[in-house]
């Protein structure tokens, strides 16, 4: 049993034609390599240590574990290749073993990555409350101050907020402060939120890390009852209490790393990276929103007003259309219907429930930022009467 091959010893860059003959009599079994021209023995390879390397089609490349890493027998031609595989039956075994080894590495690596992803998706929301406690509240206040300046500049085009009532001692401001303090009473939060009502056409309210909370006047105008106003305010205070701004910062940083790892592009510049990261971040954001709703609902229970106001107001100013329902996974807020269900479950339907603000307070709050009077109507030009 023999076959011909090209031989390289892995020590010098020369290549020669050889004849390989199996020597079954020796122990261990050896593969004798003879020069094709002179039939001198060039080398003897331990047959069991031979292994196959990846090669192009119609070629076998054989290495040997007891020879230099570059030592090779290259076998071409079907008859020759069959002969080589027949003489060295271990070759196929080694190849199969390598195949399974690779499959095992891929399998293990995939399982490991999958468990990291699952642990991340489900673990971060559970851990987030504890993770934020590693960051001192002063940091968070500082971040809030930076974000405050940026948002103010971008919302007002650099002109600065038009604060509705700057005096903290007006009836409306005092009512809002009373509500805020009641909502945070006994919670041991390191933050004392401050609520500022600002004139704006955008119906919105937002809370920044550290407790600065803004309520835009359009949203007050859209509120029909004091409980609607109180519900949204309590929801924003929930963000402050749970430090969601800080949680968001932590999770977006780590999400980028994770998505970058999966896609193999840690620069995070690809579209896939951005989409993937936003899918995950929005999932966390929806969980935060649900948590803030829960805070609002519990605050309503404690203070004895109706928690459904929050979602009644949302229904009017931010109704989900078919499109946003279809792309719910891309939304950073839960769907309004789901929020309603969760909040109505917290409604005690207590017949003694009374509004969060007295009529007098509520009227003062509504009047904080009256919409500017409509521009005067142009003078009606009446055709000059001609005196007969």
């Amino acid at each position, binding site marked *: 049993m023999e076959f011909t091959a090209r031989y390289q010893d892995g020590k010098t*860059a020369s290549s020669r034609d050889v004849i390989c003959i199996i020597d079954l009599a020796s122990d261990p079994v050896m593969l004798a390599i003879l020069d094709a021209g002179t039939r001198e023995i060039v080398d003897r390879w331990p047959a069991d240590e031979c292994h196959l390397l*990846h090669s192009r089609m119609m070629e076998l490349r054989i290495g040997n574990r007891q020879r230099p*890493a570059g030592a090779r027998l290259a076998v071409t031609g079907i008859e020759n290749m069959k002969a080589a595989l027949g003489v060295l039956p271990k070759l196929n075994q080694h190849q199969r073993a390598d195949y399974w080894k690779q499959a095992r590495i891929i399998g293990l690596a995939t399982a490991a990555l999958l468990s990291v992803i699952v642990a991340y998706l489900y673990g971060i929301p559970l851990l987030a409350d504890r993770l934020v406690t590693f960051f001192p509240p002063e940091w968070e206040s500082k971040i809030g101050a930076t974000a405050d300046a*940026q948002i103010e500049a971008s919302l007002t085009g650099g002109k600065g907020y038009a604060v509705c009532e700057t005096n903290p001692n007006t009836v409306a401001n005092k009512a809002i402060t009373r509500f805020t303090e009641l909502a945070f009473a006994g919670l041991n939060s390191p933050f004392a939120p401050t609520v500022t009502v600002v004139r704006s056409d955008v119906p919105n309210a937002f809370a920044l890390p550290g407790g600065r909370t803004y309520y835009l006047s359009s949203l007050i105008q859209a509120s029909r009852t004091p409980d609607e106003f109180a519900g949204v305010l309590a929801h924003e205070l929930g963000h402050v209490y749970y430090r969601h701004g800080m949680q968001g910062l932590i999770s977006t940083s*780590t999400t980028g790393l994770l998505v970058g790892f999966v896609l*193999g592009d840690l*620069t995070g510049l690809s579209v896939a990276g951005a*989409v993937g990261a936003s899918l995950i971040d929005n999932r966390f954001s929806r969980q935060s929103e649900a948590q803030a709703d829960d805070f609002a609902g519990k605050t309503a229970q404690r203070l004895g007003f109706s928690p459904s106001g929050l979602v009644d107001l949302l229904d009017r100013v931010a109704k989900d259309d078919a499109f946003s*329902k279809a*792309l719910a996974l891309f939304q950073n807020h839960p769907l309004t219907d789901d929020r309603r269900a969760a909040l109505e479950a917290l409604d005690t339907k207590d017949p003694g429930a009374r509004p969060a603000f007295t009529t007098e307070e509520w009227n003062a709050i509504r009047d904080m930022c009256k919409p500017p009077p409509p521009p005067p109507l142009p003078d009606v030009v009446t055709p000059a009467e001609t005196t007969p």
Partner: protein
Amino acid sequence: MTDTTAEARTGRVEFTGGRQEMLGIILRGYALMIPTIGLYRFWQATWKRRFYWQNTVIDGEPIEYTGTASQLLLGFFFALAFFLPIYIAFFVLSMQDVDFVLLGYAAIAAVVWFLMGYAVYRARDFRLSRTLWRGIRFDLKGNAFAYALRRFFWSIANVLTLGLIYPWMGSSLWRYRWRHTWYGDRKFEIAGNWKTIAGPYYSAYFLNVIALGATGGWIGSTGDFTMVGNVPVPGPIGISMCIGCVLVLAFSLAFYRTRVASRMLSTVSVGDAKLSVKLGTGALFGQFAVYVVAVVALLILLALTAAIALGGVYAAAAAGGQTPDAEALVSLFSSGTTNVILLIVAYLVILGAFGMLAELILSFGWWVLLARGASIANPDSLRTVQATAEDKALIGQGLADALNVGAY
């Protein structure tokens, strides 16, 4: 078998692989990429390299790629070590004052640009040290940091001079790379300098400047454009001039790449063996043209597929007795999860199809062009090259993968 008449002998370089084999590798890769959450890309890259390397036959002996996918995987883990501080810096920066944040971003961009040079060099080291020919491996010595510094400062100078200094930058980097490249115990040399690059570079540069200047000047001076919103849209002659600019760009790119590769690589030698490379500009320009045609054909195909799929849904809705209107279509897609999965699948199909075309036409084409255009004078002088110890460094390739600068 040492014939002394070999002095004048020239060794040919051939490429024996076919596109359909590459297509098979790519399709198998895509199929396995999804169940492995993207991890198969390391195996995919390894298979592609094996294919390119083993089918490149230099003077009768194929080169061999000995790297493994696990090395790439490990290398990528090492690369994470470079990125963690950057991510932490981003995190800390996001809490600072606005001016400071901008400064910080600029610093991070500089660090990443520097790291790219480092990664490119180490990736070349990784590939060379895992390339065998006649049982002897190549290697890249030198200092990757030194290379990255050179590249970094040269590129700043290049930006400041509007690219006019590039021939000096290019030749400095080419020379650093090749003068630290080894085959076994024999060092590579390169004789090319800035003059070798300058001719093709400046021709291409000024050709584009003239084309752009003429087009811009003509459209501006004749007022041959209409404003659509804030965007000026040129008239028919202006449009054809713009298309001309794109053609000039593609042609000059093909010209520059083939000329510089031919001229620079033809000055490369290892001991008494000399490399010679002849590449035709027309061949590369032809590949660009084929690529554009293929991309257009692919877009039409994808659009047709989408139209047929939508038509099928419409027909099914009609057959089911429902009025086939937009409302009914929207209701089919009303589940968030289904939609996102559909979107992701569509994205992957499009991305995968374009990646496949780029690999099959551009990468494959360039490699084959280079291989078939190359020959080695006096290859027998290499028979006395001796092997050196193994190189097991992994890190650079992983970093290059992470930074998206790896080639082949």
